[in-house]
């Protein structure tokens, strides 16, 4: 799994109340980086991810993998799907086999791999997502958080270069979010580029190297502090500014944080603040 | 709709892997206050709400409304449901009718009201939830956030004194959360006591007058700052401390916030902080 670069150029796709959901949307997924795709519900995040994964054929524009245009032919899709995998928001839409191991083996079996290779892939994917203990369990007995991770394992077993995740943390409690993020970090360590859609701006600030916001049928892309500090853009996108940026800016103005400091969460903020009163920074 | 006091005493309920999900759980819902029910996924929040609403009969313990014990008879349940309504997390579990107005009319009709009274209730509930514009729309064309609000309207049309909501903000984007909270505030103004389960500690701090945490099969209840500042409790409950409490405590220690200040979100924090450096508070 070497990093490959996935991009979208001038996409028009989806159709709702007489117009496209996306129109002229362009995006570059930098290889090996963590990209958070932000947007309000209904903004077109899912439509964009479905185009990138090849599930949805755009009405105009192109999806490019290492510069080569995705062809919506049987062969083109087959090649694309070995490199790019999408995990949908609702795990129940992806778990259709009786047991966890069977479900995860679905993709590798379809790749025509031998039994041993399939077993190896399944074991590897389950271990990466830290759900190896669930292999023999029936899928309908799992908790929501477990089902989400098993659904991701199903995509991971395809060994994609780029893994697209639609709202992977939605509905998870804090500890499940932490576990999911740890699993994604392990995936990245194996060389997978991870794209995550979310409407949680605090999470995006904490996690992402790069942010893309879906707004007004297009995509605005940039570095986290830049994009998430752009109040006009966030207002158009119906998103809030992450609290850490708001509070950080004031504390910088008060001279409590060094000029370049951009704490991304409470722990980083506390670490950058002086411990006792009167100690200048 | 006068405020009435709902309580649970020593509940044992639910059953998973050989033991009860709740065991010895007691809770008092103070009339007219906003209660947030916190807990990790699978901790038993939903089980507790189902007991309180009467849809699940506890194996032991009692549910009390104004001190009177809920009897799980046809008549007892009927009386209880006129006072206490539960809205489940997935709106599709409650929307059975294809048209919004028809769906909301279901409860009031079952109360045996006449057509005009039913229509009045439907209009009132839709207006309170700010979904009156959707009355004539088909359920299957609504967005997730709209479906959530229509499901709440269905319960509100029963004019309960206590409205129990299971994860009403889960899956909603920031602007939809704001709208949902505004709707709940309008409900409270009409005299309804609102209980909301969530695992979002930041939201709970911002919204609630009173917090109950489901932990180790029981419930710990108290004032927000108290409960959410108890790190040992939060760790047992697999929850995080709200960032505003963490950051607020440090800023108080630094002398930047007045001793008693407990900002609950970024806006309150900014308002309590000095605007320029060097200005003591």
């Amino acid at each position, binding site marked *: 799994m070497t990093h490959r670069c996935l991009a979208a150029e001038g996409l028009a796709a989806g159709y709702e109340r007489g117009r496209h959901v996306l129109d002229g949307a362009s995006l570059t997924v930098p290889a090996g980086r963590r990209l958070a795709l932000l947007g309000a519900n209904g903004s077109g995040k899912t439509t964009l991810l479905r185009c990138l994964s090849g599930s949805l054929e755009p009405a105009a524009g192109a999806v490019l993998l290492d510069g080569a245009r995705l062809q919506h032919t049987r062969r083109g899709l087959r090649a694309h799907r070995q490199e790019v995998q999408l995990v949908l928001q609702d795990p129940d839409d992806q778990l259709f086999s*009786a047991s966890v191991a069977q479900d995860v083996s679905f993709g590798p079996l379809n790749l025509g791999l031998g039994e041993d290779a399939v077993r190896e892939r399944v074991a590897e994917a389950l271990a990466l997502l830290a759900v190896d203990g669930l292999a023999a369990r*029936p899928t*309908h007995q799992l908790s929501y958080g477990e089902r989400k991770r098993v659904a991701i394992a199903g995509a991971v077993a395809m060994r994609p270069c780029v893994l697209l995740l639609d709202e992977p943390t939605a509905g998870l409690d804090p500890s499940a979010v932490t576990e999911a993020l740890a699993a994604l970090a392990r995936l990245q360590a194996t060389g997978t580029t991870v794209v995550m859609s979310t409407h949680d701006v605090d999470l995006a600030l904490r996690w992402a190297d790069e942010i893309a916001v879906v707004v007004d049928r297009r995509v605005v892309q940039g570095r986290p502090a830049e994009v998430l500090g752009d109040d006009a853009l966030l207002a158009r996108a119906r998103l809030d500014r992450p609290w850490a940026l708001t509070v950080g800016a004031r504390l910088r103005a008060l001279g409590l944080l060094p000029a370049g400091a951009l704490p991304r969460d409470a722990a980083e903020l506390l670490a950058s603040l002086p411990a006792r009163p009167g100690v200048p920074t | 709709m006068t405020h009435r006091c709902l309580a649970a005493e020593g509940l044992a309920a639910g059953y998973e892997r050989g033991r009860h999900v709740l065991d010895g759980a007691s809770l008092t819902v103070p009339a007219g206050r906003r209660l947030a029910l916190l807990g990790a996924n699978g901790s038993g929040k939903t089980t507790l709400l189902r007991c309180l609403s009467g849809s699940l009969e506890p194996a032991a313990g009692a549910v009390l409304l104004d001190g009177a014990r809920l009897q799980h008879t046809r008549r007892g349940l009927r009386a209880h449901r006129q006072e206490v309504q539960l809205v489940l997390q997935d709106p599709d579990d409650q929307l*059975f009718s294809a048209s919004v107005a028809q769906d909301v009319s279901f409860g009031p009709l079952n109360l045996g009201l006449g057509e005009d009274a039913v229509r009045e209730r439907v209009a009132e509930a839709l207006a309170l939830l700010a979904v009156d514009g959707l009355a004539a729309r088909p359920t299957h064309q609504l967005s997730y956030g709209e479906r959530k609000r229509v499901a709440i309207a269905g319960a509100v049309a029963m004019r309960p004194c206590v409205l129990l909501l299971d994860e009403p903000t889960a899956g909603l984007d920031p602007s939809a959360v704001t709208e949902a909270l505004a709707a709940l505030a309008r409900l409270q103004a009409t005299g309804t006591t609102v209980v909301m389960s969530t695992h979002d500690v930041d939201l709970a701090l911002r919204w609630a007058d009173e917090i109950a945490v489901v932990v180790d099969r029981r419930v710990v209840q108290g004032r927000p700052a108290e409960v959410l500042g108890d790190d040992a409790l939060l760790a047992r409950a697999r929850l995080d401390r709200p960032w505003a409490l963490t950051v607020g405590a440090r800023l108080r220690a630094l002398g930047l916030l007045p001793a008693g200040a407990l900002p609950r979100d970024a806006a309150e924090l900014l308002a309590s902080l000095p605007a320029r450096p060097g200005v003591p508070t």
Partner: protein
Amino acid sequence: MHIAEGFLPPLHAVGWTVAAAPFVVHGARAVVKEVREHPENTLLLGAAGAFTFVLSAIKLPSVTGSSSHPTGTGAGAVLFRPPVMALLGTVVLLFQALLLAHGGLTTLGANAVAFAVVGPWAGYAAFRLTHGVGGGLLPGVFVALVVADLATYLTTSVQLALAFPDAGSGTAGALAKFLGVFAVTQIPLAIGEGLLGVLLFRVLTVN
């Protein structure tokens, strides 16, 4: 193979509606009784109807090159029994007519006889028969769905033949014509539906 709106002469449309009525009324009685005793089962019956509709919207992997959909009523007969299917099948046909322009209102009776009465009963009988001679569940399902599908197709052909007898050879000749013309799509479809049924029930019994 739904008979399109307006395709049957008025007398035939009325005749088939009258023929379907007792079965549909019988099914409706069963449903009313069920719902009176267990009101919450309204939801299960509704789900069964929705499943039947959605099953018939599943595209079978191409057998003949054209896209083909199962009738869904054979599986419904095995799962929910023929009397209930007479009603649920008719409701599904009504929805197909009004949501998919598939079938029609004046041909609803004729289509109900083929899809909601003859198909389910024939399939169910075949299922019990296979069981009776010691066939297992999956062979029973296969036979039931193939028979239900073929019986539906046969009934539709008879209905068309009665409406449009051949100029020279009469109804018998017409039946041969219609059976022959639609065999190309319907026989592979029947086998496909049987296969899908086996796969479906296999997953269900493993669970």
